[in-house]
C-alpha cells in the first residue's frame, strides 16, 4: 500500500528565515506530486505540482519554490519567509494515468507553519 509522509508536523519560524518542508511517498513509482496551502478552515490553494524528477509547475507566483530531487521526494522551500507564508501546507500524490479514477489525489498529514 502507498503512504505519504510530511515533516516537520509543526514549525515556528521568524520572518526572513529560510524554509524547507519535505514530502515523501512510499509504495508507488513516478507519482504526480502536489503542494497546497490551506488558510484556516478554508479550501486548498495549489502552489506547485510535479510530473517527474526536476519537473516543477508553479501555479501561483510567490515567495516559495519547489524541487523534486528524487522520484518520490518533493520539497517546498523559501529563502526568506514572510508573515503571509503562515498556513497549513499539504502534500499530495496521484498515480498518473487516463482521466477518471486516476484523478484522485491522496494527502499527507500536513505541516502547520507559523511565521512570527
Amino acid at each position: 500500500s502507498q503512504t505519504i509522509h510530511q515533516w516537520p508536523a509543526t514549525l515556528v519560524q521568524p520572518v526572513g528565515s529560510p524554509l524547507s518542508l519535505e514530502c515523501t511517498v512510499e509504495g508507488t513509482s513516478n507519482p504526480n506530486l502536489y503542494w497546497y496551502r490551506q488558510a484556516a478552515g478554508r479550501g486548498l490553494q495549489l502552489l506547485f505540482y510535479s510530473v517527474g524528477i526536476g519537473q516543477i509547475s508553479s501555479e501561483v507566483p510567490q515567495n516559495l519554490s519547489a524541487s523534486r530531487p528524487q522520484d518520490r521526494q518533493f520539497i517546498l522551500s523559501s529563502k526568506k519567509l514572510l508573515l503571509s507564508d503562515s498556513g497549513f501546507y499539504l502534500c499530495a500524490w496521484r498515480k498518473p494515468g487516463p482521466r477518471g479514477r486516476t484523478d484522485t489525489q491522496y494527502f499527507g498529514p500536513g505541516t502547520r507553519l507559523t511565521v512570527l
Partner: protein
Amino acid sequence: TQLLEQSPQFLSIQEGENLTVYCNSSSVFSSLQWYRQEPGEGPVLLVTVVTGGEVKKLKRLTFQFGDARKDSSLHITAAQPGDTGLYLCAGGQTGANNLFFGTGTRLTVIP
C-alpha cells in the same frame, strides 16, 4: 475563477438529522472526489465518482454525480458527532494535471 461552488458553507445540525451538501459548477469534470478533513489533519478521501448519474453509498453517506458531470451531492443520513469536519469536493478535468477544489462545507453535528 472558482470552478466549484459548495453549499452551504457552514452547517450545524443535531445528532440524528439528515443533511445534504452540494457541489456545483458550470464546467464538466472527468471525475469528482469528496474528502473529509479534521482540524490539523490532511483531507481523507471518501469517494471518487466518474460516471454521470453514478451513485455511491458509504454506510450512512450517499454520493451522487450529476448526469451531465457538472455537479455532485453528498447526503448524510442520521448524522453523528463523528461526521463533524470540513467536507471538500474536487473535480478532475481532461488536460489538467491537478484537481479543482471546492470552497468547502464545515459541518458540525451537535450531540
